C-alpha cells in the first residue's frame, strides 16, 4: 500500500543521499562511461577488421561478435572475474588494479572489461552500418584527390559515419548505465548494489528500489539531453534548426508532457 510506504526513506534517498550512496552513484557513472568507451574502441577495431581484405581478420571479427553477442553479459562478467583465474591459474583481476595515478577496485575493473568487450560486439554492427550509410561517392571523391584509403577513411568517411552512429550509440549508452547494475553480482557496490544492501538490512525493498529507479532515471535523462546536444552539433552543418538547451530538456521529457496533454 502506498500509505504503508515509509516516505521519509524515499525522501532521504533522493534529497539527502549520504556519501556511501554518492560513491555508488559515481561508480555507476564511471563504470558505464569507461565500459562504453572500451566498447566503442573495440567496435571500431572490429568494424575495420571486418572490412579488411585479409580474411583471418574478417574471421576474427565475426567470431568476436558471434561469441559476445551470443552469450549473456552476466556470464561474461562472471567469466572474466572468476573464470580467468580458474582457467589460467593466476589472478587476472587482482584485488585492486594500480594505474599509477590511481588504483581501481579489481572487481570494478573486471566489470568494465566484461561490459566493454560485450558492448564492442554490438558497437561493431552499429559502426559498420554507419560506415555503410555514407555515400560511396565520398570515398571515391577522396581517393580521386589522391587520398590513400586510411586517410580517406579517417578524414572523410568516419566523420560522416558518426552522424549515423551517434543516435544508436546514445541508446547503447543508455542501456549500458542500466546493464552496469549486473556488476553488483561480482561485488561492486554501484547504484543497484547499494540499494540491494540497504534493503537486505532494513527490509524496505520498495522504498530503496523506488529511489534507485529515480536515480537511474536522472542519469538517463541527463544523458538524453547531452546526446541531443551532440547530435545537434553534428547536424549543424546540414540543417538550420536551432533548439536551445532548455528546449532540448523539454524535448527529453516530451513523453511526460504528452501524457499531460491527453492524446
Amino acid at each position, binding site marked *: 500500500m502506498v500509505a504503508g510506504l515509509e516516505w521519509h526513506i524515499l525522501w532521504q534517498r533522493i534529497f539527502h543521499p549520504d556519501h556511501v550512496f554518492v560513491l555508488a552513484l559515481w561508480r555507476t557513472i564511471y563504470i558505464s562511461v569507461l565500459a562504453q568507451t572500451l566498447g566503442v574502441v573495440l567496435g571500431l577495431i572490429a568494424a575495420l577488421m571486418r572490412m579488411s581484405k585479409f580474411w583471418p581478420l574478417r574471421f576474427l571479427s565475426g567470431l568476436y561478435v558471434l561469441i559476445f553477442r551470443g552469450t549473456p553479459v552476466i556470464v561474461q562478467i562472471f567469466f572474466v572475474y572468476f573464470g580467468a583465474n580458474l582457467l589460467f591459474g593466476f589472478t587476472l583481476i587482482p584485488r585492486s588494479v594500480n594505474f599509477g595515478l590511481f588504483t581501481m577496485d579489481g572487481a570494478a575493473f573486471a566489470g568494465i572489461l566484461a561490459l566493454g568487450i560485450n558492448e564492442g560486439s554490438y558497437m561493431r554492427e552499429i559502426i559498420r552500418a554507419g560506415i555503410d550509410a555514407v555515400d560511396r561517392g565520398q570515398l571515391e571523391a577522396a*581517393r580521386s584527390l589522391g587520398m590513400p584509403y586510411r586517410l580517406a577513411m579517417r578524414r*572523410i568517411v568516419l566523420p560522416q559515419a558518426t552522424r549515423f552512429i551517434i543516435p544508436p550509440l546514445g541508446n547503447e549508452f543508455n542501456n549500458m548505465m542500466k546493464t552496469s547494475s549486473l556488476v553488483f553480482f561480482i561485488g561492486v557496490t554501484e547504484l543497484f548494489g547499494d540499494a540491494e544492501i540497504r534493503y537486505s538490512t532494513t527490509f524496505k525493498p520498495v522504498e530503496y528500489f523506488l529511489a534507485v529507479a529515480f536515480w537511474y532515471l536522472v542519469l538517463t535523462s541527463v544523458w538524453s539531453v547531452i546526446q541531443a546536444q551532440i547530435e545537434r552539433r553534428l547536424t549543424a*552543418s546540414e540543417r538550420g534548426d536551432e533548439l536551445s538547451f532548455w528546449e532540448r530538456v523539454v524535448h527529453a521529457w516530451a513523453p511526460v508532457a504528452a501524457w499531460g496533454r491527453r492524446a
Partner: protein
Amino acid sequence: MNEHVMRAEDVRKRFGRLEVLKGISLEVVPRETVCIIGPSGSGKSTFLRCINHLEKIDAGRIEVNGHLIGYRQENGRLVEDTEANIAKQRSEIGMVFQRFNLFPHMTALENVIEAPLRVRKTPKTVAIREGEELLARVGLADKRDVYPGKLSGGQQQRVAIARALAMKPALMLFDEPTSALDPETIGEVLAVMEELSAVGMTMIVVTHEMGFAREAADRVVMMDDGCVLEEGTPEHFFTSPDHERTQQFLSKIL
C-alpha cells in the same frame, strides 16, 4: 615532355558476364579538350573511371603523363600497383563527378584545401590563399565558409571543380558534370568548364551537352556498346558523321 597526357591502349573491362569496354584506345595531347558522347550504357563513364583507377581494367593499359596507371610491370606481367603509388597517380588527375560528391561536413574552402593540406602537405596559409583564389575563379569567393548543403547544385559543382583544380592536376576528368543539375544552373558550370578549356587545361569530358561539345571540344569521341565508334573535330562530327549509328544518336538528342 610527354607527347600524350593520356594514352589508352585496347582497354577491356567486364562486370561479371557483361563486357562493358571492348578494347578502347584513345590518346589525348596536352591542352586538348576531348568530349566523349554516346548512349547510356555505352561504357563512357566506366572508361573515365578506369583512367584514375576507380575501376580496375581486365586488359590493355592506360598511361597518364607516361606513367602506367594502377599497375606496374613485374617480369613482363602487369600486377596491381601499391595503394600509395595509385594514390600518388590519382593526385595528378582531377575528377569531377555527376553527383558532385562534396564533403558535406566541410565548408567550401575546407573542401578545396583538404587534399593539398593532407596529401601534398602544402603549408596551411598557402593552401588557404590558393583555395580562395580557386573559389574566386569559379565565382564563389563569397561562399568560402558555407557548407555544401546550403549551396545550389550548380554552386556545389563549381566548388567540386575548384577542389579538383587545387591539386594542380595534369588532366581533368568530368563525368557527366551537368546531368544532375537544374537546367538554370547548367550554364554557370559549363561557363567554368569553357574557361578552363580555353586556358589550356587538358580535359576529358563525358557529357550529353552537345552545345558544350560543339563550342569547347577539340575532338569529339562517340562511344557505343563498349567501343569507340568514331572520333573527329566537332564540325565534322556534328555536320557529316561517318557512322549511321552516330547520325541516329545525334538526330535523337539534337
